[in-house]
């Protein structure tokens, strides 16, 4: 499928190469092809009963009907099936936003029913800007906001890790925005935590400057990251950009997830972040889900991105 590259490995091949070596102990559990795999050599194996294991799905865009994916509902069904086919029951599944394409009541109803088919210990979401097109997130919160505070943010603890789910898709101007209320929420939320508590942050729009010209960043993310500076390990998981990307800044590692719907261009390679229609047969290569594993101790979270089966 990939054209031979006379200059050597393309980045995609490198990722595949990495995955091929890195996936030796996990390939047996993967329903689809492993496309990236980031962890330390002593990361927990998937059948460790004490490990925290969750799955990230993102950007299902239920209601999208464009040429880039004429069957987003089928794609999301496959993602749900793939989660349910895992050899373990995830502690929870997090959907990092753009559940719907245009925030219509019918789209919210459909995606909520589809999410209801996921077998996991819990189900969490954060909203994307497509989930608050015309009502500042009211329909989103009616469907998914139970247990949240403010405009939909919340936190929880599980198996030694602390999770913070943020909303950075409201009150937008050019970039994602958290706002003073939410920064204050995080300040109080982490105040009593020991600095060796692993922190995991969910948001739709990246908390790092991935490509501000297309709005792929959050203007006041630095205020939250400053509050998390004292922690040994901070992992930020986001969607929005419909492609895998990883970056480390000090104690913080950012992982952008791919989508179950359609790809977007790589930063700056197109006039606008419009849906990309791939040649026939190549769409599945761009879609996927992400498995994340953590075992109590000093090691970072293990992140494995798997192609949609």
């Amino acid at each position, binding site marked *: 499928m990939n054209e031979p590259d006379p200059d050597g490995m393309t980045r995609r091949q490198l990722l595949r190469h990495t995955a091929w070596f890195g996936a030796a102990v996990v390939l047996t559990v993967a329903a689809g092809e492993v496309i990236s795999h980031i962890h330390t050599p002593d990361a927990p194996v998937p059948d460790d009963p004490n490990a925290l294991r969750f799955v990230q799905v993102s950007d299902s865009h239920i209601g999208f009907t464009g040429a880039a994916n004429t069957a987003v509902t089928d794609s999301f069904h496959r993602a749900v099936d793939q989660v349910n086919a895992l050899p373990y029951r995830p502690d929870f599944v997090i959907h990092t936003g753009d559940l719907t394409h245009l925030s219509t009541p019918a789209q919210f109803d459909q995606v909520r029913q589809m999410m209801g088919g996921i077998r996991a210990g819990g189900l969490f979401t954060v909203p994307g800007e497509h989930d608050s097109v015309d009502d500042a997130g009211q329909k989103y919160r009616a469907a998914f906001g139970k247990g949240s505070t403010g405009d939909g943010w919340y936190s929880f603890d599980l198996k030694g890790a602390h999770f913070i789910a943020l909303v950075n898709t409201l009150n937008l101007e050019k970039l994602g925005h958290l706002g003073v209320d939410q920064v204050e929420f995080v300040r109080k939320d982490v105040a009593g935590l020991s600095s060796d508590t692993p922190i995991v942050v969910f948001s739709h729009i990246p908390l790092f*400057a991935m490509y501000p010209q297309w*709005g792929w960043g959050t203007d006041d993310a*630095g205020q939250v990251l400053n509050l998390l500076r004292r922690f040994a390990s901070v992992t930020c998981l986001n969607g929005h950009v419909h492609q895998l990307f990883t970056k480390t800044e000090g104690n913080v590692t950012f992982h952008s997830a791919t989508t179950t719907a359609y790809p977007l261009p790589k930063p700056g390679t197109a006039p606008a972040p419009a849906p990309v229609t791939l040649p026939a047969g190549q769409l599945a290569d761009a879609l996927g889900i992400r498995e994340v594993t953590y075992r109590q101790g000093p090691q970072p979270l293990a992140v494995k991105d798997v192609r949609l089966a």
Partner: protein
Amino acid sequence: MKTLVAAQRLSLMACAALALTACGTPAQPSGMDMPSTPAAPAAPVATNTVSIKDFAFAPPLVTVKAGTTVTWTNGDTEPHTVTSNGGGPLKSPTMNSGDTFRYTFTTPGHFDYLCTIHPFMTGTVEVTP
């Protein structure tokens, strides 16, 4: 396993290099850390029609007299909105491809707006007496 670690490091370095070229300077955790798009001073255009094309409002800055109805037309295949920043008067429904939205400006003033779906798309209407 050495090969694995080396390949991962290489992969991360490739990511970091891409981030640097894509974003200029890495984000500093200091609040106002985002390099913003260079503010190209848009010349105001006296017109009551704005087209939405290639994820941009064109022209981005229009001037009209009070009482004028401004019409936006979505020429993209992707949906967009015309929505005031903060508590302003513009609040279009979702505009699908080919849809139009009209608003009559009755009072003079400076009206900034954006697309809630793609908030990097911004525009302004200057209403003169």
